[in-house]
């Protein structure tokens, strides 16, 4: 299979195309229609591999992708006679009242695919990593929900995925006036470098309400990327609570379109990095209709030599009078070699909007520190408490106790001093 002559070529792109050619015939149409895979391949070839010199990719650890040994999905390696898939991790306890869908290395465990795959969105250039999942996905969690439901989709990377790639894929259509609590959790722990490349496509119907919890707890060697696209109809509500703590390198790219009048979107996220972890999030929200609302909250802690970046771009179109957009981005630099980059951006093309944004990066608040010290609390304990409090807004917004506990323990695991003082509730 050849790429257009105009393509921006690179070694990694060549490897991706070679790997795709090698497995394309064996990839299941049930996960992604064949024509969509081909179209994705051609689009990625046309766009080329992203470059760090591009502003949108400046903080992404693109080099980590160069160390991915193979882009073909691990499931095909198994089919060729490699070791059987066995979960290397103990599964978390089921969430009360939730139906669990388990995917191991991107393939549904113990059951057939949930529904026929949908066509999925067309990814813009800044979301081109989504094309990888379109090309290589081996399965899909395709959900069409009517009424009220609670579903946990657990994507597990097994030990067998070491050195290979897997492509979690989630597609959701939430029908009008329906309600869904959705937990999307990525877990893994293989020692060798593994690519986890996820796509999430969501349609929230008129008047529907979606609460989407996202926990990324991939293994320490994993290169993780997820690409999310969501579209909200009139009076729809979509809330995301995201906790990013795992992986050597993680890139989240999300595009949310508020297409119907009165649609409301809330994004509350934390990222905690240590060692040389990189967490990079690019969130773009498009207000396309009147009286649409966005609330963005991001809290990031970078310890040791970690890098954390968050780009929050809110675009309010001329067709969206009465829009209300708020951003609160805060970063805490804990390590001498750590780096945080927060980029709020409001782009307003109409009058009659309410918009506010704030972005601060720095050290712990001295007033809060003095208050604790003045109560006799050790400085090290006070520091740990304040770090924990820094994440508190978002962690407390996780309304499911079992999930909040998991998120808290995961976050505290990234902060040994917090774990040591036992501040977890």
């Amino acid at each position, binding site marked *: 299979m050849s790429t257009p002559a105009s393509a921006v070529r690179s070694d990694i792109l060549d490897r991706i195309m070679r790997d795709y050619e090698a497995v394309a015939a064996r990839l299941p149409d049930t996960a992604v229609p064949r024509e969509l895979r081909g179209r994705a391949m051609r689009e990625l070839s046309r766009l080329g591999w992203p470059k760090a010199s591009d502003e949108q990719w400046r903080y992404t650890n693109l080099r980590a992708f160069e160390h991915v040994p193979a882009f073909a999905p691990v499931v095909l390696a198994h089919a060729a006679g490699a070791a059987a898939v066995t979960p290397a991790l103990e599964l978390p306890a089921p969430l009360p009242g939730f139906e669990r869908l388990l995917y191991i290395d991107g393939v549904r465990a113990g059951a057939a695919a949930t529904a026929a795959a949908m066509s999925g969105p067309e990814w813009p250039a800044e979301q081109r990593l989504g094309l990888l999942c379109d090309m290589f996905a081996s399965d899909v969690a395709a959900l069409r929900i009517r009424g009220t439901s609670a579903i946990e989709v657990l994507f597990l990377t097994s030990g067998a995925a070491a050195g290979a790639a897997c492509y979690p894929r989630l597609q959701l259509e939430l029908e009008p006036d329906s309600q869904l609590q959705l937990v999307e959790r990525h877990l893994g722990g293989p020692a060798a470098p593994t690519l986890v490349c996820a796509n999430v496509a969501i349609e929230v119907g008129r008047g529907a309400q979606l609460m989407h919890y996202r926990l990324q707890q991939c293994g320490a060697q994993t290169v993780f990327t997820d690409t999310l696209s969501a579209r909200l109809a009139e009076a729809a509500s979509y809330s995301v609570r995201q906790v990013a703590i795992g992986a050597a390198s993680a890139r989240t790219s999300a595009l949310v379109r508020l297409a119907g009048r009165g649609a409301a979107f809330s994004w509350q996220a934390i990222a905690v990095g240590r060692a040389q972890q990189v967490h990079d999030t690019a969130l773009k929200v498009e207000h396309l209709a009147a009286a649409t609302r966005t609330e963005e909250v991001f809290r990031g802690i970078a310890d040791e030599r970690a890098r954390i970046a968050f780009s929050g771009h809110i675009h309010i179109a001329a067709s969206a009078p009465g829009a209300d957009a708020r951003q609160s981005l805060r970063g805490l630099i804990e390590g001498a070699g750590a780096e945080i980059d927060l980029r709020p951006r409001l782009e307003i093309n109409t009058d009659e909007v309410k918009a506010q944004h704030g972005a601060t990066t720095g050290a712990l608040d001295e007033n809060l520190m*003095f208050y604790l*010290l*003045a*109560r*006799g609390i050790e400085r090290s304990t006070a520091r740990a*408490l*304040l770090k924990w409090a*820094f994440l508190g807004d978002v962690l407390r917004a996780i309304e499911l106790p079992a999930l909040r506990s998991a998120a808290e323990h995961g976050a505290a695991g990234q902060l040994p001093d917090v774990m040591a003082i036992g501040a977890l509730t």
Partner: protein
Amino acid sequence: MSTVPGIAAAAAAPLLEVRDLRVKVGGQEVLRGVSLAVRAGEVHAIMGPNGSGKSTLAHVLAGRPGYEIVAGTACFEGRDLFALAPEQRARAGLFLGFQYPVEIPGVNNAYLLKAAVNAARRERGLPELDAFEFLAVVRAKIKLMQIDESFLSRGVNEGFSGGEKKRNEILQMLVLEPKLALLDETDSGLDIDALKVVADGINSLRAAERAIVLVTHYQRMLDYVVPDFVHVLARGRIARSGDRTLALELERRGYDWISEQAAA
């Protein structure tokens, strides 16, 4: 000790002794030679107009960063206070009640109180309280301060009204049982009912082995917590000291006459 008029005859060694303290903030001298002696069992009121240095004095003694100590000394039970870090001062038995208590969402009140109590107990060589012992201690104090027990699981001062924050400050003081309490404008922003509750809390802690320093702008708190001594701070110095009648005189005459005397 004869640093403060009116208490020269007292026999006991001061719990807190401040001598000729000079402090700069942002390059400007805010305290310009403050001397003060406070003995166990005493209640002192430090009054003065806005900007006179009252809160600066309280915060410098508690160890807040950002102040430059130009000259002078402060001894607490004979120890050089300025040689101690803020947390060491607190564990030694010095308590600062904040005028503007901060909110710390994500750290609950119970955790803060227990950590603070046990830090102080470790300092005194006492065993730490376990969860049950701690709750037993704190429940009685909560009742006295008319605070709902559910507040223990809430974030420190999170969403509290001004009055609730001040009650929480006094609750912390009651639980920690300090040797010296410096209460910085604890009465500000309180309605009369809350003022009485706060005053009851403070009075419940009056004891022969303990001293209280009330920093206040107004006299009304002193109707409920009657001081043994009143000092008026003006232009960075203690311009006048006396008994409670001085506070009543200030209520009648205001601060201008003292400020003018201090400027002369």
